[in-house]
C-alpha cells in the first residue's frame, strides 16, 4: 500500500505539478502544442459556451478556490479557448462546483460545467488524479467514497451520529449492486480500478 501511495505521488507530480511548472516556464508556445478542436471537444462533454468567455475575470474574483491557491478560473477557460489541452487537463481537481462563477458571469456561461467537462476528458485520456481512483475504489468496496475506519467511527460517535452497519445484510446487498453497476458500465476500466474492485 505504501508503494501505491508513492506511485500516486509520482503521478501527481508528473501530470499535475510538472505540467504546471512547464507552463510557467518562459518559453514560446509552439503552434504544434495547440489543439484547435479542443473547444469542440469540451462542448461535447457539456462545456457548451467556452468560446463566448469575455475574459473579464469576474469568475476568478468570486471563486472561493481561486482566492486560496494558484487556480484561476478565467485563465483555465483561456487555455481551453486557446487549445492548450495538455495543460488544461493537468489542472488540479479543486473546483467545488459551487456555481458562484456561473451566478456572476456577465456572458452567462457556466465555468463550473467547463471544469466538469475537462474532468470527463481527462479521465478518458487517462489523466486521473490518484485521489479520484481511491475515492472510486472506496465507493465500490465500502459503499462510500471515504473509507470507514476506527477514527471516523469515533468522530461519528462524538457527533451523535449512528454507526455504519457494514455487517448489515442490506448494506452488503447495496455494495454488491454498486459493484455490478460499476462493472457493467465499465466505469472500473475507465477509471483504472479493475484490480481493486475485482470480485
Amino acid at each position: 500500500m505504501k508503494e501505491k501511495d508513492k506511485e500516486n505521488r509520482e503521478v501527481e507530480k508528473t501530470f499535475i505539478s510538472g505540467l504546471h511548472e512547464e507552463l510557467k516556464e518562459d518559453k514560446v508556445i509552439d503552434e504544434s502544442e495547440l489543439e484547435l478542436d479542443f473547444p469542440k471537444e469540451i462542448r461535447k462533454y457539456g462545456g457548451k459556451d467556452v468560446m463566448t468567455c469575455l475574459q473579464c475575470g469576474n469568475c476568478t474574483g468570486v471563486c472561493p478556490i481561486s482566492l486560496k491557491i494558484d487556480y484561476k478560473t478565467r485563465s483555465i477557460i483561456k487555455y481551453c479557448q486557446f487549445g492548450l489541452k495538455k495543460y488544461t487537463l493537468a489542472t488540479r481537481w479543486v473546483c467545488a462546483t459551487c456555481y458562484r462563477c456561473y451566478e456572476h458571469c456577465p456572458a452567462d456561461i457556466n465555468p463550473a460545467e467547463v471544469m466538469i467537462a475537462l474532468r470527463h476528458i481527462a479521465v478518458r485520456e487517462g489523466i486521473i488524479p490518484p485521489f479520484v481512483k481511491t475515492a472510486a475504489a472506496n465507493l465500490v468496496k465500502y459503499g462510500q467514497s471515504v473509507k470507514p475506519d476506527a477514527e471516523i467511527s469515533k468522530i461519528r460517535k462524538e457527533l451523535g451520529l449512528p454507526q455504519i452497519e457494514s455487517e448489515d445484510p442490506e448494506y452488503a446487498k447495496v455494495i454488491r449492486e454498486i459493484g455490478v453497476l460499476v462493472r457493467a458500465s465499465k466505469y472500473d476500466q475507465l477509471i483504472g480500478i479493475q484490480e481493486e474492485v475485482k470480485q
Partner: protein
Amino acid sequence: MTAPAPQEKGTTTEPPMKTPGSGAGPRIGVFICHCGSNIAGVVDCGKVREDSSGLPGVVVAMENKYTCSDLGQEEIIKAIKENKLERVVVASCSPRLHEPTFRKCIQQAGLNPYLLHMVNIREQCSWVHSQEKAKATEKAADLVRMGVSKAARLEPLEAREVPVEPVSLVVGGGVAGIQAALDLANMGFKVYLVEKEPSIGGKMAQLDKTFPTGDCAICILAPKMVELSRNPNITLLSYSEVEEVKGYIGSYAVKVRRKARFVHEDKCVGCGLCADVCSVKVDNEFDLGFGKRKAIYVPFPQAVPLKFTIDKEHCTHFKSGKCLLCVKACTNQAIDHQMQDEIVELKVGTIIVATGYDTYVPKKKGVYKYWEYENVITALELERLVNAAGPTGGHLIRPSDGQTPRRVAFIQCVGSRNKKIGNDYCSRVCCMYAMKNAQIIKEHEPETEIAVYYNDIRAFGKGFEELYHRIREDYLVEFIRGRPAKLSLNPKTKSIKIRAEETLLNKITEREFDLVVLSTGLVPAEGSKRIGKILSLTTSPDGFFMEAHPKLRPVDTAMDGIYLAGCAQSPKDIPDSVAQAKAAAASAAVPMSAKKVTIEPLTATVDEDLCVGCGLCTELCPYGAPELVQSEKGGSKARVIEALCHGCGTCAASCPQKAIITRQFTDEQIYSELQAALEGPHRQPSRKKVEVSG
C-alpha cells in the same frame, strides 16, 4: 385603380396559359443572375436556365454575370422588345434591394413595373447551401419554376400618390430632437417639437463636459436651445406628451396632451420671484437628488422655455388649499392653480422619433452595492457633481461625508454587455465618458488616484484613442483589466474595497477607494415603449427602435413617414446623435419637399360582397390599416386604408370569408407556386393536387 378580379375561386389551379407561341398565356422571360460567384459559385446557373427554358410560357431564358448592372438591365430591355415579353422573372438576390431597380428597368421597356417577379436564389439558396452544390442547383430550379408559375398570374398594378403635409412632428427634445427640428425649420418646414419635461435639453444638458474634446455640454447646447425657441417655424410644446397618432405618411393626425404646468407660458417671464417665496424644498431630478429645488421651479438656469412649472405633488396649495405665496409674488398674474391639461390636435406629414435613452439603474441586490453604499454612485450622478452649475459648484465630493475623494475607481460595463440582466449590447459611450470624467477629476484635483476597471476599451471614434493615450500619459490614470467581483465597505471610513482579478497579471487584487463610480450603460427610455405602441414601431432585441434596414436605411422605420434620431434607435454619442438627427431631418424633408409620396399598390383590398363586417382584420392588423365603414348596400364593411397597408397579408390569411385579397399575393398566385414546387422533374409522380380552398 381597380382591384384584380378574384379569379377562379374554388377551383383547382390548372395553368391557364398554353405553350409559348400559341398566344394564350403571357410570354415570360427568365433572367438568371450569377452575381459574380455569389450564386454561380454554388448553383449551376446553366442547368437552371436549361430547366426553366422548357417551362410553360417561357419564351426566353438567359444568364447574366451581374443582372443589376447597366449591361444586365440593357439585356432585359432588349429581350423584352425582341421577344415581346409580357412578364419578367429575375432570379437573383433578395427583392428588398433590387426589386425597385428591375421594376424601373422593365418599365423602361414599356411593361407595367408590377409584372416583374423576383426569385431569390442568393440569400435563400446559394448562400445558405454553399456546402451542397447539387441540391442548391435543384432548389434554384424549383424556385425559378415556382416564380414562373406565379409570374404568369401577375396583374398590372398602378402606384398611387398621396399629398404630404409640409409639417413635421419631432418627439423628444434632447440634442437629437433639437437638431432635427432646427434643420427642418431652416429648410422652411413647420415643426412641432414635443418634450415631456418642462425644458428641452435632454440628457446632454445634464452632462459636464463632452468627450473627447472636453467642450462644455451646456455651453454648446444652450445656443441651439435658444435658437430653437426663437425659430418662427418651430412650435415648442414642452411639458407635453403625444397621446394618439392616426393616419399615414403625408397626413398624420396627432393628439398632444399639454400637461398643466399651472403657469401661463405667455405671461411668465421667468423672473423667479415665485420660487424665491416658495417654502417647499424637494430633490431636484435634474441634479439626480444631489441638489434641491422649490415646488415651483425651472429645472436648470438655461432651461428653454424659461417658464416656471408647479410640481403638483409637492405644492402646498394642492395639499392644503392654502399658501398661494407664489401667486402673490408674481407680478404678471402668470400663476393659475386651476389650470387643466389640454389636448392639442396637430396635422403633420412626417414624424421624427427622438425619445432618447435612460441610464441603467443597478439592481437593488446587485454586486455593486449601489443601493447600500453611499459612496457608490453612477456616472450621471458624477456628471452633476463635477458640473460647475451643479449642486456642489463643480467641486467633487463623496456623498457620505462631503470630503474630496483621494482615490476614485470607475467600474465599466455596468448594465452593458451582460447577458445576466438581458443587456447584451455595448453601450458605446461608457469607455469614453469614464476617461473624460477621469480627466475632469484630475484637472480639479491632480493628486487624485484613479483606477478604471474595464473588460475591453472601445476607443473607436475620432479623437478617442488619442484621449485614451492622453489620460494615461498626462494624468497617469491606471487601467485594470478585470471585472470587480466584490465590493465591501470599511465601516469606519465608508471607503470601499474592491476585489477583482487583474486578468493580465493573473492575480486577484484588493484595493480601497473613497468613491466608486459605476459606468452605467444606456437603456431605452422609459416612455419609448408607449410612443412605440402609439406609432406601431418595432424594436430590436435590445429594446431600442428598429431601423428599416441596418445599413441602407438607418434612420427610416418600417412605417413610412416616421424616422428615428439619436439614442431612440441605439446607444450613441453626441456627434452620432446629431448626425443621425440631421439625416432624419433630410429623410423627412424628401416627401415634404416633393409634397406627395407614391404608395405601393401591393396592398390588401376587400371584396365588399363577401365581407360580413366581423372586424377581425381591424383587430389583427399591426398597422391599423383596415377600418369598418358603413356600406351603401347596408351593414358595416371593412375597408383598407391603402397608405397604411404594408401588404403583410395578415388580414387576408385570417379573413374567415376570404373577402380580402393581398395584391401580388393572391391565393391563386400562392397556390400556383405551391403546385409548381411539387411538379419538379425529380419529384415523385404520385402526388396530390393542391386544392385551392375557398
